[in-house]
Every structure is written in structure tokens, then in C-alpha cells.
């Protein structure tokens, strides 16, 4: 399904508006859209709303064998799923260019910068380590998927708790959350991506482009930093010509934005920790916006079930009782049985000499011979096996 095309007048208007420092939704050039971070019911599930762009991240863990090159380090695996729900152009299954670019950038931003301590994920060195898998699902694409995905991924990792595990010899026991409370991951620092879009060959610069601005931009510069002003990764894409001064200006803006976002994420994690400690119910259900007219919630509703038994009884009475007698099958030949009136007069062909073999030459038989398992002709003929690779051929006689 193709995207609705962009008309020339829309493109000209957007570019003219950017020249006059005006954006569609009235933001300034360096403003972010409102960021909303909410958490799901279980640990490691987090939703990020960046304006209308909506992304969900879910962290899960599993015990696997480590890589040979790093025997005592856990494995962290990222996967951004561009769900067909997010935009008509996202197809199921096919890895589009955008999905490869986003996945590689998230990997570079969160894995190469060693923000998760992988040594602490080792259970039995060389044999069993934790594999942490971060699945990011894009639910609504309204521009700037990279920032939303990176915020969702790092927040979910901080929010995640993996089950406690103890080893006796090579026997490992995994404790369920009830037995021992799960352990958080050790996160050294929180890299956050900030995207800058460039227009008119780099003369104009916008932060956090929305979907319409992304369609008219020339290129994008993505800088990932943490609040200690350390750069975790930089990636420029699109046919833009950058100058050194522009890159330096972007990194300064990025450091300001990153500290704001990190503080917001910290507050969200804190609220959630307080809510869970206070035992309140938390999850997607609570984050349903009750005040909106498009949302409605009801509490437990009883289902009255007085006349159920009467209804059931009269249905069963009304149905006529199935007859007990059943036609008995005919056995033209041992190993072959048939029931139901046969239309091909199997009995007349009784005198066929090959007994124990389907003697009707229905199409099913020929193909079957073509299949790799050789069908047994009759008792004494040597059963020639398919060219399986075992050295000595074992001749199986079915009637022993």
C-alpha cells in the first residue's frame, strides 16, 4: 500500500514556513513534542508517546549458551518491529531500509556504548548466560521513530527485573518472583538519541521532526549522548552537506535536551517504583485516559445465570438421540479396511495378485512412489532404502 504522495504546494509551504522559523504545531525550532512515559503491568514493559508517535518496548530474558568469543558475557539483543499498524507503508516480514537503519542505530547506541553490564549476566561461565531481548514495537508513526525507540528501550531496560538464579554445581535453579524478588539490570549510563533534521542544504535545522517535516527534510543527524555529556554515537544520513560548526552546535543542543529527557525518565521510573511499593495496581489499564469521550471503562459486572440449566436441558431433549447401530466396515484384504458404500467395487478386484497393497491405481499411489520413502512392494523383494547416508544398510523385514 503506497503512502499518500506529497503535493508540491505542501512541500513549498512547509519549506517557506521553516524559513520563517514557524512549525506546523507551533513549536520553536529546538522544542520537543510532549513526551509521555508510562509502564505496563509486568517489569520491563514501557510505552513512550512522543507527540502522536507511539512506541512500546518489552524486555524479556532467557538462559542461553554464550558466544564462543565472549564466554563469560551475557548477550543483549535489540529488535525494532515496524508494525503495519504504524503506517500503511510498513509491510509485514520484509526488512525495509528504514527498519535496517533504525535497528543498526539502536544497536550502536545501546550496545557499543556498553551501557549495560554484560558480565553481571553470566550464570555459568562458558555454559549458561542470560540473553536479554529488547523488542520495540512501533504502534503509530508520526515522525522521529529513533528518539522514541531509544527512550523506550533504555527506560524498559532500567525498569526490567530478571528472576534471581542460584547455581549448585552445574544445576541451576531459577526462582519465580514469588520465591525471591527479581533483580534489576545494572545500567551504567542512559544514552538518549536526539535527531536533528536539515533543510535547504543544511541552512535550516529542526529538532524532533514530525512526520510531515521528515518528508521534506534533506537529511538527518542523530546524536546519542548521556547526561554526563559523553557522546555514545553519531550518525548522519540523507544527502546533506554538514559543516564542522553545525555538528558542534548540534552536540551542544543535544546535551541540553538529553539532560531534560533523562530527568523526565528518572521521574517516571521513580513514580512507578513508588506506585508498585504502595501496592497500587499499575499497567496499561490504569493509563486509560478516563476523561476523554472516546474512552469508557466499567468495573466488574456480574452475569446472571438463573435460567441456564433449563435452557440447556430443553436443547438436549429436543435433539434426537443418535442411533446406536453403526454399519460395520468391510475388510477386503488384511491391513485394509473400508466403511461407507464403496463406489469403486473394490471387492470384484479381489483376485489382484499383489495383496497388502492398494490395488486401485488412484493418483495417490503414483505420487507416493515418487516420495523419498520407498513403499514396500511385497514380502520377499529386498527393501531398497533411499540413499540415506548410514554406512551399512539394515534390511527390515516387517513380519518379524
Amino acid at each position, binding site marked *: 500500500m503506497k503512502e499518500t504522495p506529497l503535493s508540491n504546494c505542501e512541500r513549498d509551504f512547509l519549506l517557506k514556513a521553516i524559513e520563517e522559523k514557524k512549525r506546523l504545531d507551533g513549536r520553536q525550532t529546538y522544542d520537543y513534542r510532549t513526551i509521555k512515559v508510562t509502564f505496563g503491568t509486568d517489569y520491563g514493559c514501557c510505552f513512550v508517546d512522543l507527540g502522536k508517535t507511539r512506541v512500546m518496548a518489552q524486555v524479556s530474558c532467557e538462559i542461553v549458551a554464550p558466544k564462543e568469543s565472549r564466554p563469560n558475557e551475557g548477550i543483549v539483543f535489540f529488535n525494532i518491529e515496524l508494525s503495519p499498524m504504524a503506517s500503511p507503508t510498513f509491510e509485514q516480514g520484509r526488512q525495509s531500509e528504514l527498519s535496517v537503519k533504525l535497528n543498526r542505530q539502536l544497536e550502536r547506541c545501546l550496545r557499543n556504548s556498553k551501557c549495560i553490564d554484560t558480565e553481571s549476566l553470566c550464570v555459568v561461565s562458558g555454559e549458561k548466560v542470560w540473553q536479554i531481548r529488547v523488542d520495540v514495537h512501533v504502534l503509530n508513526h508520526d515522525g522521529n521513530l529513533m528518539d522514541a525507540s531509544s527512550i523506550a528501550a533504555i527506560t524498559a531496560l532500567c525498569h526490567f527485573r530478571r528472576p534471581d538464579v542460584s547455581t549448585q554445581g552445574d544445576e541451576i535453579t531459577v526462582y519465580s518472583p514469588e520465591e525471591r524478588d527479581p533483580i534489576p539490570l545494572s545500567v551504567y549510563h542512559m544514552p538518549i538519541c536526539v535527531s536533528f533534521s536539515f533543510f535547504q542544504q543544511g541552512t535550516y535545522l529542526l529538532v524532533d521532526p514530525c512526520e510531515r517535516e521528515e518528508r521534506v527534510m534533506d537529511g538527518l543527524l542523530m546524536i546519542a549522548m548521556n547526561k554526563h555529556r559523553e557522546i555514545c554515537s553519531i550518525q548522519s544520513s540523507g544527502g546533506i552537506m554538514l559543516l564542522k560548526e553545525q555538528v558542534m552546535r548540534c552536540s551542544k543542543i543535544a546535551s541540553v535536551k538529553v539532560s531534560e529527557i533523562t530527568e523526565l525518565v528518572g521521574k517516571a521510573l521513580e513514580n512507578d517504583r513508588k506506585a508498585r511499593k504502595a501496592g497500587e495496581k499499575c499497567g496499561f489499564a490504569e493509563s486509560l485516559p478516563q476523561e476523554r469521550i472516546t474512552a469508557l471503562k466499567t468495573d466488574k459486572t456480574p452475569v446472571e445465570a438463573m435460567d441456564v440449566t433449563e435452557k440447556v436441558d430443553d*436443547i438436549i431433549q*429436543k*435433539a434426537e438421540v*443418535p442411533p446406536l447401530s453403526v454399519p460395520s466396515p468391510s475388510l477386503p484384504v488384511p491391513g*485394509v479396511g473400508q466403511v*461407507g458404500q464403496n463406489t469403486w467395487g473394490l471387492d470384484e478386484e479381489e483376485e489382484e495378485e499383489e495383496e497388502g*497393497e492398494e490395488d486401485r491405481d488412484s493418483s*495417490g499411489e503414483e505420487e507416493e512412489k515418487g516420495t523419498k520413502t520407498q513403499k514396500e512392494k511385497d514380502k520377499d523383494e529386498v527393501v531398497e532404502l533411499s540413499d540415506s547416508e548410514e554406512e551399512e544398510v539394515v534390511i527390515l523385514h*516387517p513380519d518379524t
Partner: protein
Amino acid sequence: MAAGFKTAEPLEYHRSFLKENCRPDGRELSEFRTTTLNIDSISTADGSALVKYGNTTVICGIKAELTNPTVEAPGKGYVVPNVDLPPLCSSRFRPGPPGELAQAASQFIADIIESSEVIQPEDLCIERGKLCWVLYCDLMCLDYDGNLLDACVVALLAALKNTKLPEVTVNKETSLPQVNVDQRHSLNIHRHPVATSFSIFDDSILMVDPTDEEESLATAQLTVVTDEEERLCCLHKPGGTAMSGEKLQECMSRATVRQREIQKLINKVIHSVNMEK
């Protein structure tokens, strides 16, 4: 002329037959096609069966292998069913990864094995936590003419009853399994689930054992699986026209009759194979 009418207006063609409540191939609405069962036709498999519902032909081969049980269920072996619809059985299936129909059928068979408890997974366990049997049940459709699910369930049940597993003893010191091939015992089958499929035509007429053409014109499919104690193992109706409780009751009673019929057929054929040995 009838052939032209059939290709031009398939729906009208079928309606004209259904008015006198019979069907183009001469069967009544609640009548099954000739069901043929052949057991132990593949010698290289541990258990095999070939079933024909009219033209629809399904062959089931079971191979047993030794493996270590899963971490979550150390005391149980497991069964891996797989329904394969190769391009040779109908022009509608193209080579390549299994399509939606094949995957839905595999999931259906897996649910049946689990819900009906046809075999106890504990029987497949040899050494708790160390060694157990895994039964790879591969069902291949050789000729597709409608009603795939019924044929698959009967083929699977017959093949399971025909399966012979060799004796396995775990040698204490080397803890290696020793398999002696000639000492074989068969699986004990606890339940005999049999499937009966119906299809609904024009939101009103209910018919049993639909052919491929009737299936494509039908507005709903329903499959009822019952066992010998008339317990239901599955009521699989993936959408289509709505059905009332009474109609479902009608289908279930037809299914119990069919179950007895098939069970009798399987027992007789198994008996004839053992007698002949």
C-alpha cells in the same frame, strides 16, 4: 451442458441438487464418502497409516527419536505434529513455506493431541530429566479434495495405534541408552478422538464431509472431535455464519455416530494386521 453450467454458476448448480437434499456426487447431506484405511504401509516408519476420504488422501508417518526432555517438563516426552500440504496435492498450494491452511491444520492437530490426551506424555519418558522419546508425526496430504482435518485425525490415530517403540535401557556407568530393535512394544492409546467436519451452505443447509468444491462455496466450516466416552475434545469453528445451540447439538450427535463407526474400522484393520503377522 451440465459441465458448462457447473463452471459458470457453481452456486446455482449446487443449490439445484440441495433442493432435493442430495449432493452432486450422489450422497445425502449427512453421509460420509467411502473411507479407506491402510495400516503399516511404510516400513521405514515406526508407525504409519494411509486414509482416503473419497479422493482426499492423507498419509501419516511416525518416527520416534531419543532426546532429553525439556527443562520445564522433565518427566515427559513430547509429540511434534506437522501437516504438510505439498504442491502435488492441489494446484492451489505453491512450493515454499507452509501456507495459512497448513499451519492452521498443524495447530489444530497439536491441540487435539493435547486436549484429547490420546497418549500420556509420561509413557514416553524413559529416564526422568535425562532421556525420553519424541514422536515426530508427519501428516502429508497426497490428494486434496476437501475435509483435510477429518482425514488427518484418523490417519494420526491409526498411525499411533500402529506405532511400535523398541525397548530402551540406560546403561548405568556410561549412562548411554541401549536400544534393542527386535524387542518392540506398542503405545497404549487412552482415548480414540475422531473428527467430523461439517460445512454450512447458503447460511442454512448443513452437510457432512464436504468436498473441495463444497468447501470453497460454503459460508462456514465446523469440526467436532469426540472420543469413545462421548466427551468432546474440540469444537473448531473458525468464523462464518452463526449457528444456534440446537444446530450444534445436531452436529454433535452425528459426530458420536461417526466416532463409533471409525473406531470399529480401526480396531478391525489393526486386528487384521496383527492376525496376519
